[in-house]
């Protein structure tokens, strides 16, 4: 409350109400006591702040001053809390760390410099004597030309700020290192007067501050409200009626902890937690720039969800995302985690300059890393030394250099998954693959059994009875067609997993018809094929006939060093016998494919698909003459064996041929093996991929860039961390960087992480500016609590669920959120937490809840982004027509009704319903969402297709519910949407509302029919009632 008086003083000064200013700075502390104790003089005194409140909101919005100022006026002035914010905001621009911008040689961010004698002969600060300090003279009692800060910069100091600076100097002008750069020490939780209230340490810190401010905590929220709050906070969904009943009636002493445990172990927990992280990670399902084509990175999204559900410690979580590819024993999952680094927007816009893109991507990555883990606004140092924090421009590029080794092409080629990527099997696919391996082992074992039991015997019998006949009837007499080449089949898009669109030749080859456009190839593909067109598939076809079964080799090769992905498929006699996806780093490539040629006609179909630019390759089919020469020898060997005159090699050759092409068990084995191989290829062809990190052997060189411009490199810089942070002694790569962030000495990482999690529960962080822990950031509302939580988090192995359990089991969290009149003035933003948190639910929760209440939500986990319906034309309005995301086609069925975390995120036109409720675009890192209240939100809640479907779903549930009276139905429905029991007044209102709706629809049966498909006014009335319920403020608010 002391702070409040300061705030009013600042406010009034700006308004020029100087006399009141003086009055308040003296009297308000007392006034607070009057208000909270309700003493006789109250009415008179209360009227004074009321008058101020009328102007207060406008002013505080204008100047960005938080409603609750977190400093003190009386007593000792503390540099970090009281002085640094003033110097930073009003002085450092010209008298700070950035020596390029420094004026008059004066530097105020360091005590030695600030107290030294200046060229003018004065000292800005004379410790112990404000009167002698030039600084004090220049901020008061001087002409406009002399006044600091200069009036034109529009950052005048308030009288209170002036007096604080003077007091500070009088008290010795002691500096402190910026609080967030001093490693946290775990403080002892303070003792409190009301010792029975705290449930855990959090409450001691909160209550101590409340007691200091003469504020009382609130009563505990009722159980129903509490379970609803807890369910939203831990899972993003409301509780069911059954869960409510169980919770409300649970008489066990640990009923609350049990509910917490149940919710923490729900798979919904990870889906909800991941949502916040994906804003910070700037995750999206498109590349975000220029054509904004789809990108395949969703396995990373699923990784984040799983990591939260598995309660991965935050240090591991950090290391894997920043450097999973560099871990010595990194798994597939660790590779997928590095998708974090690749989440930045990228482009393939024609005309772009590679060097510029490399710089842009590196900037995005380093700034995101700095915001997410350190709460540092590093971006300020891209063009010049940081104005407010001691971060030099050189340090910016040294830190960026950690990201200089990524092996990626600057232009993303509009590919679905620009390299480097990794194939990621779903559990289902992994099972299928395992099954195929098992099957293969089984048939191999079976074949081995046959070999052991009867191979030699059968061979000898064949040699004796049929071999000479076989040699007589089978000759290497093959004849073959020329090669044919199909027309180019334009792939409509590359949004299928890779570019695997199927075309008619795969069904059946029609050499005569026009649609496939077959042409005889004059030059053999052995001499090379060239597919000129962009993003097409081309087919090559050949057939041959002969009486002798054999094996013929197909050889595919490309020497071209291209970054374009290429995909090959080969069918022999209608069966897929080869599949391979080559990516940009696999080329040049070369592969031999053995083809089992049968007696009679053989057909060979080769498909080459590629993306981007021309493809050059050769398709080399072993010449028949060579096959004939080889098999002539085999036939001779068989003949010799049948006459018992074979040499040992001839005998082996004869047995081998017999086993493959004659022996029934051998042929069965080949056929079974081919079937399994085909299944495996088909599976491989649809296995999704995810963008990951890979390091180049030689990283790109990083330069300090003049004004941040890519084409103005100055000196070359090496990987290094900023001087103000702990020393770096690990390997100089991303892994070393990640380990350095979480090695326990870092002053920022844990504080920033716990602060962000705290904000998820209380709506605002202990440091309100979650993204800025620097001098321009806000002083924490509870510095000791923040440090305690940070230390506790680190000491307990960065255990996220433990931290969250600590928060939600605190008495602070469990308070009622009901507003109290004294709090409306003393702490309107609830920073002191004299009541529980109350704020509008986030976009995803609002949508998910509606589907859930309407009985529509489909809880299926993971997979490619889904497209719930949205108003038409939103993608088209912004897209280039040939983009893979030019046209929005809504998913049907269950895919349309999944949780919003799975909604496909096109970054140049984000999901409309989510954006309406303040979801960011995901183009850049966001660690704090805005929370607004707009008419467009009202329209969405009233009219959006899915919200209205949810209302119909609720109406249906009401009607089907096994109670019959209106009253019972309304009570049930109200509890469904709010979790609490309806009050008599509310029941009256709803009953009247229902009656009005009935009357209306009885009078308008046509509208009832439009609404429900029947003229039944009863059903229509319930739909309107459900629509009413879903639009209640309480329903979209965490109470």
């Amino acid at each position, binding site marked *: 409350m002391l702070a409040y008086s300061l705030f009013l003083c600042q406010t009034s000064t700006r308004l020029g109400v100087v006399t009141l200013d003086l009055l308040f700075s003296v009297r308000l502390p007392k006034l607070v006591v009057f208000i909270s104790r309700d003493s006789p003089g109250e009415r008179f005194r209360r009227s004074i702040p*009321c008058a101020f409140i009328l102007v*207060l*909101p*406008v002013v505080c*919005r*204008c100047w*960005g001053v938080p409603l609750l100022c977190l400093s003190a006026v009386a007593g000792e002035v503390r540099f970090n809390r009281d002085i640094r914010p003033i110097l930073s905001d009003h002085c450092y621009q010209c008298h700070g760390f950035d020596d390029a911008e420094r004026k008059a040689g004066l530097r105020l961010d360091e005590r030695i410099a600030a107290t030294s004698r200046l060229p003018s002969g004065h000292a800005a600060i004379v410790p112990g004597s404000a009167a002698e300090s030039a600084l004090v003279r220049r901020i008061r009692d001087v002409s406009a030309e002399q006044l600091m800060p200069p009036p034109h910069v*529009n950052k005048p100091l308030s009288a209170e700020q002036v007096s604080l600076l003077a007091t500070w100097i009088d008290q010795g002008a002691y500096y402190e290192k910026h609080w967030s750069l001093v490693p946290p020490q775990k403080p002892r939780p303070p003792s409190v007067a009301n010792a029975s209230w705290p449930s855990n340490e959090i409450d001691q810190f909160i209550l101590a501050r409340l007691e200091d401010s003469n504020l009382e905590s609130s009563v505990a929220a009722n159980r129903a409200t509490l379970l609803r709050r807890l369910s939203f906070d831990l899972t993003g969904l409301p509780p069911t009626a059954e869960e409510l009943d169980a919770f409300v009636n649970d008489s066990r002493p640990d009923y609350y902890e049990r509910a917490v445990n149940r919710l923490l172990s729900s798979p919904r927990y990870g889906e909800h937690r991941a949502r916040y992280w994906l804003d910070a990670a700037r995750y999206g399902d498109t590349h975000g720039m*220029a054509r*904004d084509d789809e990108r395949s990175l969703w396995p990373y999204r699923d990784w984040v969800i799983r990591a939260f559900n598995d309660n991965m410690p935050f240090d591991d979580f950090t290391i894997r995302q920043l450097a999973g590819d560099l871990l010595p024993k990194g798994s597939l999952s660790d590779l997928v985690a590095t998708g974090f680094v690749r989440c930045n927007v990228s*482009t393939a*816009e*024609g005309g772009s*300059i590679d060097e510029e893109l490399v710089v842009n991507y590196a900037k995005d990555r380093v700034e995101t890393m700095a915001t997410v883990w350190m709460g540092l*606004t590093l971006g300020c140092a891209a063009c010049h030394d940081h104005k*407010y924090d001691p971060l030099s421009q050189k340090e910016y590029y040294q830190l960026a250099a950690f990201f200089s080794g990524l092996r990626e092409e600057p232009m993303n080629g509009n590919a679905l998954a620009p390299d480097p990527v990794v194939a990621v099997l779903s559990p289902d696919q992994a099972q299928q693959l395992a099954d195929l391996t098992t099957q293969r082992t089984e048939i191999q074992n079976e074949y081995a059994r046959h070999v052991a039991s009867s191979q030699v015997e059968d061979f000898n019998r064949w040699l004796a009875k049929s071999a000479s006949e076989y040699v007589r009837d089978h000759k290497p007499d093959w004849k073959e067609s020329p090669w044919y080449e199909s027309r180019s089949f334009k792939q409509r898009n590359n949004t299928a997993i890779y570019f695997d669109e199927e075309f008619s030749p795969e069904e059946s080859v029609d050499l005569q018809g026009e649609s496939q456009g077959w042409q005889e190839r004059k030059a053999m593909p052995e001499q090379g094929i060239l597919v000129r067109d962009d993003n097409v598939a081309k087919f090559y076809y050949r057939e041959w006939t002969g009486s002798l079964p054999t094996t013929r080799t197909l050889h595919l090769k490309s020497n071209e060093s291209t970054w374009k992905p290429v995909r090959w498929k080969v069918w022999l006699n209608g069966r897929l016998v080869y599949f391979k996806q080559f990516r940009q780093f696999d080329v040049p490539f070369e592969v031999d494919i053995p083809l089992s040629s049968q007696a009679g006609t053989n057909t060979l179909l080769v498909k080459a698909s590629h993306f981007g630019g021309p493809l050059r390759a050769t398709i080399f089919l072993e010449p028949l003459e060579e096959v004939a020469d080889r098999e002539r020898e085999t036939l001779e060997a068989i003949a010799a064996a049948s006459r018992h005159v074979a040499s040992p090699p001839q005998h082996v050759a004869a047995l081998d041929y017999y086993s493959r092409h004659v022996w029934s068990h051998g042929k069965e084995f080949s056929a079974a093996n081919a079937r399994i191989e085909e299944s495996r290829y088909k599976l491989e062809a649809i296995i999704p991929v995810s963008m990951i990190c890979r390091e180049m052997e030689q990283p790109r060189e990083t330069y300090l860039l003049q004004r941040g411009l890519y084409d103005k490199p100055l000196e070359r810089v090496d990987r290094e961390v900023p001087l103000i942070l702990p020393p770096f002694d690990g390997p100089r790569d991303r892994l070393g960087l990640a380990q350095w962030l979480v090695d326990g000495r870092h002053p920022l990482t844990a504080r920033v992480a716990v602060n962000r999690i705290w904000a998820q529960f209380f709506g605002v962080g202990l440091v309100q*500016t979650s993204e*800025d822990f620097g001098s*321009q950031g806000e002083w924490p509302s509870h510095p000791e609590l923040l440090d305690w939580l940070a230390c506790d988090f680190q000491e307990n192995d960065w255990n996220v669920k433990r931290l969250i359990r600590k928060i939600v089991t605190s008495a602070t969290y469990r308070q009622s959120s009901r*507003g*109290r*009149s004294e709090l*409306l003035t003393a702490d309107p933003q609830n920073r002191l937490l004299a009541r529980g948190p*109350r704020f509008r639910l986030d976009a995803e929760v609002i949508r998910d809840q509606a589907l859930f209440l309407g009985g529509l939500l489909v809880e299926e986990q993971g997979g490619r982004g889904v497209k719930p319906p949205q108003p038409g*034309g*939103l993608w088209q*309005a*912004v897209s*280039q027509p*040939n983009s893979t995301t030019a046209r929005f086609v809504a998913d049907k069925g269950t895919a349309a009704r999944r949780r919003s975390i799975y909604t496909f995120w096109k970054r*140049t*036109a984000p999901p*409309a319903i989510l954006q309406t409720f303040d979801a960011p*675009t995901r*183009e850049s890192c966001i660690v704090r969402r805005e929370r*607004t*209240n*707009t*008419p*467009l939100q*009202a*329209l*969405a809640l*009233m*009219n*959006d297709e899915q919200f209205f479907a949810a209302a119909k779903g609720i109406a249906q549930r009401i009607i089907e519910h096994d109670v019959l009276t209106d009253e019972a139905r309304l009570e049930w429905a109200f509890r469904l949407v709010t979790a609490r029991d309806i009050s008599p*007044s509310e029941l009256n209102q709803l009953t009247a*509302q229902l009656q009005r*709706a009935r009357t209306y629809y009885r009078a*308008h049966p046509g*509208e009832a029919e*439009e*609404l429900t498909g029947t003229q039944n006014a009863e059903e229509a009335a319930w739909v309107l*009632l459900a*629509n*009413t319920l879903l*639009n*209640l*403020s309480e329903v979209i*608010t965490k109470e």
Partner: protein
Amino acid sequence: MSELSHITRRRFCSSLGGMLGTLAWRDLQAGDVAFKGNTLPARAKRVIFLFMAGGPSQLDLFDHKPKLTKLHGEELPPSIRQGQRLTTMTSGQSSLPIAASPYRFQRHGQTGTFVSELLPHLSEVVDDLAVIKTVHTEAINHDPAMTYIQTGHEQPGRPSAGAWVHYGLGSETQNLPAFIVLHSRWSGSLNPQPIFARLWGSGFLPSRYQGVSMRSQGDPVLYLSNPRGISPAARRLMLDGVNSLNRTHLEDVADPAIAARIAQYEMAYRMQTSVPQLTQTGNEPASVMKMYGPEANEPGSFAANCLLARRMVERGVRFVQIFHRGWDQHGNLDKDLRLQCGDIDQASAALIADLKQRGLLDDTLVVWGGEFGRTTYSQGDLNSPGYGRDHHPRCFTMWMAGGGVKPGITHGETDPFCYNIAEGGIHVHDLNATILHCLGIDHEQLTYRYQGRDFRLTDVHGRVVQELLA
């Protein structure tokens, strides 16, 4: 503040006591004017920005370079190019031959401003325009260049100009969004460059300041129409129930956000009437429809959007942004440029004339232009009819009209090759600074604290171009 006419302050204040009422008031106010730094006299109250996405060819439309005819086909002298960077689309081209404009230019109006034959209607209103031949930018590709001119930064993440203006000046209407974006059909390239929601986004400003895309098909504003079976009367009935229960809850839990929400529901309800009134142009007199041309009857055409823009500013919309895509003539310059000009010529001229005849031009600022210009040399073989021009950031033409801008002037000169600026260069930051100035906003004072820094539309740059001001 005006948003509140239906929910009176008294109603807030009466039931809850002064504190809560006032705080609710604050919550709503925050939705309106957040910034009070406009100390300058405002000449313009609102802006209509006609954005030609893709980069119109300045030397085929406004920047007349008669001397190039003689040099047609000759190599661009290195002394002019000065080795500065080209896009990779022509940096590999072995020759950069000068392509003189094939179009006839004539002087028009009292002021004798040169305009190409492709823009016959605009030629008739040149006396109202300030033609600026020397706008320049650093970005050489569409995505960064559009993002730059619209948000003051080449990378995504900053608020758009319209969002800044909305934030700075608030809303003048209680029935419509303050910042509206319209998308137009185009006739040129079938595969034009994309645009991005960030071009009208709010960046780090609260999202209430973002532009509302008004659509020509379906609901003009997202989710505006009631579902089937919900008539306006039923909607009113439902809203009364919602409001009544919300008020009950407000009294119970004393959360000012509830009061604000009640007001927003009322505004939503009003929009359900006011937006269709806005978009139904059937009652416009025939004379007006004739001005805008026959396409004005086709929703989604540039002409229909210009007409809508006028109706919007009449109703107090602060910032209207019309996008017209397809100006990226790397090839087929002649064919496509004619089509593009055909889309916009008559309607933009009509917009100026229509605003003027209603007295609205005095306090409405109209801005026309794209993200950069096009090269004087050809992209592709100059002898084939399919040649075009590459991106050119070093000088391009925009025009402004009304709202505090000096009419009938031509500002700046480019060199005879239309390659470099000879005098009077106006950077895109200067342009934005000048637009804000016309609106009474000092671009250095319009700031928002984010990540510890006070951000501006003009970053740390920008100069108000006094020469353009009336």
